[in-house]
């Protein structure tokens, strides 16, 4: 049976992980490789590295880091943040990433999705959508959630699939940081409407939230950052719990 994926997200700035960690056995919490290896050991199913530096001069640092990750990590990983062109994608994929995640650049120029899918295959295009429920509708936001767009979230997800997206990474800004659980309604709406995997993101605060998003919203995976970084919910404990709840888990 295909398993539900648990995906830790690591924010990267200037080649280092940001946000604190309290793994006792990690010497250098700022070292993305060491943190990533720790997650792999714990049973993470995939990793997402989000580069929040995203300035042109730092691109080279990122490519070098991706090469190093690819040498050390034996599970699939996605790289996102500031990817604007086929050239950016090519550098990251050639460095060894399995997938790239694009967000604002796809909103600004949706054809980028097709261009990547044509050249590298749909399986490596993750379209990340930041969404917010406001005035009774779910809308897409860009630039790290700072700028609202006119795109309705459901329409954009369907369009992204048509253009060749291999996966949707859906972050609810209403839920992100609250630790009150993932956005079940919009995640379910999107996963019912598309035939590609939907990864839920934003709001994880308890093990039960993962069960809820897998059971009620048909999410293929769930992504979280802080609860894993701060060791609030260790991955082995989360996976053990989900197994007892009859969720298919590796």
């Amino acid at each position: 049976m295909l398993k539900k994926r648990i995906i830790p997200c690591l924010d990267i700035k200037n080649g280092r992980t940001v946000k604190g960690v309290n793994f006792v056995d990690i010497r250098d919490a700022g070292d993305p490789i060491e943190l990533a290896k720790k997650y792999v050991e714990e049973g993470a199913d995939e990793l997402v590295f989000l580069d929040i530096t995203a300035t042109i001069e730092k691109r080279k640092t990122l490519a070098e880091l991706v090469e190093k990750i690819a040498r050390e990590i034996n599970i699939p990983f996605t790289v996102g943040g500031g990817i604007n062109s086929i050239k950016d994608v090519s550098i990251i994929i050639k460095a060894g990433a399995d997938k790239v995640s694009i967000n604002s650049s796809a909103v600004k120029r949706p054809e980028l999705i097709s261009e990547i899918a044509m050249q590298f295959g749909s399986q490596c295009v993750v379209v990340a959508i930041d969404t917010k429920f406001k005035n009774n509708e779910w809308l897409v936001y860009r630039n790290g959630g700072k700028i609202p767009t006119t795109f309705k979230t459901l329409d954009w997800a369907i369009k992204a699939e048509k253009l060749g997206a291999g996966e949707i990474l859906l972050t609810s800004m209403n839920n992100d940081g609250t630790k009150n659980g993932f956005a079940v309604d919009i995640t379910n709406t999107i996963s019912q409407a598309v035939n590609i995997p939907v990864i839920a993101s934003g709001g994880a605060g308890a093990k039960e939230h993962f069960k809820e998003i897998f059971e009620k919203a048909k999410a293929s995976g769930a992504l979280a950052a802080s609860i894993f970084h701060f060791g609030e919910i260790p991955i082995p404990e989360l996976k053990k719990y989900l197994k007892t709840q009859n969720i298919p888990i590796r």
Partner: protein
Amino acid sequence: MIAIIKYNAGNVRSVENAIRRIGFDCVVTDDKEKINAADKVIFPGVGEASSAMSYLKKYQLDDLIRSLKQPMLGICLGQQLMCNHSEEGNTDCLRVFNANVKLFPPKELVPHMGWNNLLDLKGDLFKGITNLDNVYFVHSYYAEICESTKAVCDYILPFSAAMQKNNFYATQFHPEKSASVGEKILKNFLEL
């Protein structure tokens, strides 16, 4: 020496990384002499069947692959290209395995992407592996079950997750991305 066949398919890098991680040396090459002289040959692949086959034919790598006598491992598209025919681009393939490659009916999400367990494990590749172990898949086309099937995976329908005939081995999943289970399978192959 282990040779990884270089052709117009992606993913060669991650296979190379995985082999080095488990302590073996390898070369990525399209040099026929080097491939022929290798102890083991790996035929990886992410990409599209018809363009990959035309490339192999253009550089006579198709005949070379069929004539190999040493253990050879096809991965993902590599396995599919070792079958008779693929629906992807209506492509005639290498005819090592007597099976056809078909597109999944869209009853569940396609591609089949993520971790899945293996059933009916047989043969040398799966020493120390059980049907509770999971490996990583990403594919929209599948090889039918045939007499060469050495592991089955059930997604939408049961299909060949691994195949073997004589010195020819293949997996639909990506051992190079399947954590310690994948490394064990790769090691089993490299130690044949």
